[in-house]
């Protein structure tokens, strides 16, 4: 599979005015987080839980920043109540970058069920998402920006294994 460089993608997000990043790591996102720790223009705040990261992003948005939440799909379970009882009803957007562990049932046992249901959970909650690919980045980001700026709702970019360089 073609891959995107973490650097190019983060720089792209910064150009879209995302400067506030937080989350809980996943190996699939390790390159992104390493790069975030290196760039001047963006701030990466380690969160201890994904739902706390949702709260942090909400506070950042309410004070005028555009936030990004990086997490593994296992974190989606922890976040669902925050998304449904905070972001969706208050119209507080956030760009979520969610790694897809357990894709196709080929992963460690703890990832298999969530790997099967994560996108169904998003759909059930009425939350839009797209699977990010090296060749759909511009188009997907344009959709995400519309969702965030016009509808003021969260948008999730699903990241498959191998999309980004991993650093660990």
């Amino acid at each position, binding site marked *: 599979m073609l891959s995107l460089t973490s650097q190019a993608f983060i720089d792209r997000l910064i150009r879209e005015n995302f400067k*506030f990043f937080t989350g809980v790591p996943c190996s699939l996102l390790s390159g992104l987080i390493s790069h975030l720790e290196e760039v001047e223009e963006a*701030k990466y*705040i*380690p*969160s*201890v*839980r994904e*739902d*706390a*990261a*949702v*709260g*942090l*992003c*909400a*506070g*950042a*948005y*309410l*004070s*005028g*920043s555009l*936030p990004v939440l990086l997490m593994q799909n296992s974190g989606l379970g922890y976040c669902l*109540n*925050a998304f*449904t*009882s*905070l972001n969706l*009803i*208050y*119209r*507080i957007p956030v760009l979520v970058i969610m790694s897809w562990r357990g894709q196709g049932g080929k992963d460690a046992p703890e990832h298999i069920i969530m790997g099967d249901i994560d996108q169904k959970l998003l759909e059930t909650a009425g939350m839009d998402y797209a699977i990010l690919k090296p060749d759909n980045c511009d188009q997907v980001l344009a959709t995400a920006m519309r969702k965030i700026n016009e509808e003021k709702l969260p948008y999730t970019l699903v990241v498959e294994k191998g999309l980004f360089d991993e650093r660990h």
Partner: protein
Amino acid sequence: MKGTEAFQELIPLLGNEPVVHANGYICRESFSLKDREANFYMIGSMGLASSIGLGVALCKPEQKVIVLDGDGNVLMAMGTLAMIAAEAPKNLVHVVIDNEVYESTGKQRSISNAVPLEQVAKSAGYRQALRVDKREDIKPAFEKLMNSDGPSFLLIKVDPCFDPKTGRVTHTPEEITARFMNSIRH
């Protein structure tokens, strides 16, 4: 001191600071006493008032930001105390109304009778953590924290007394967002 008295004492001390409220009784009591544009009434997402407040504090470093929390909410998100300590925003004041119960759902006991939350905050690394039991101690303690660098923690020990007839927040969540963002911009 009754819980309501803590609000009666605290709210007149506020200027135009953003105040992020924990869900349940905390929102309703504050709203009923004095509705403010700069109040973020978090009606769901229990436990997240502290992380929302941290986000505001980090993005508005020149502005004091207050979190008005409950013991049950704090216990649900103790990890956020560590995040606040680690990020150490000087402008964050975390006030906790500790009635040792989940009052909003019928006064079931929490465990804050056994866990001194101000010590948890202090050990996590808040710059200051105070505990008050008497109404007359609220004002000096709050003013001290508002006039010095944080992150600060103020635990107010109260007796549950919530009157279920107290009104609910009448603004819609979307209105709460718009008002709060507007007040923060100015």
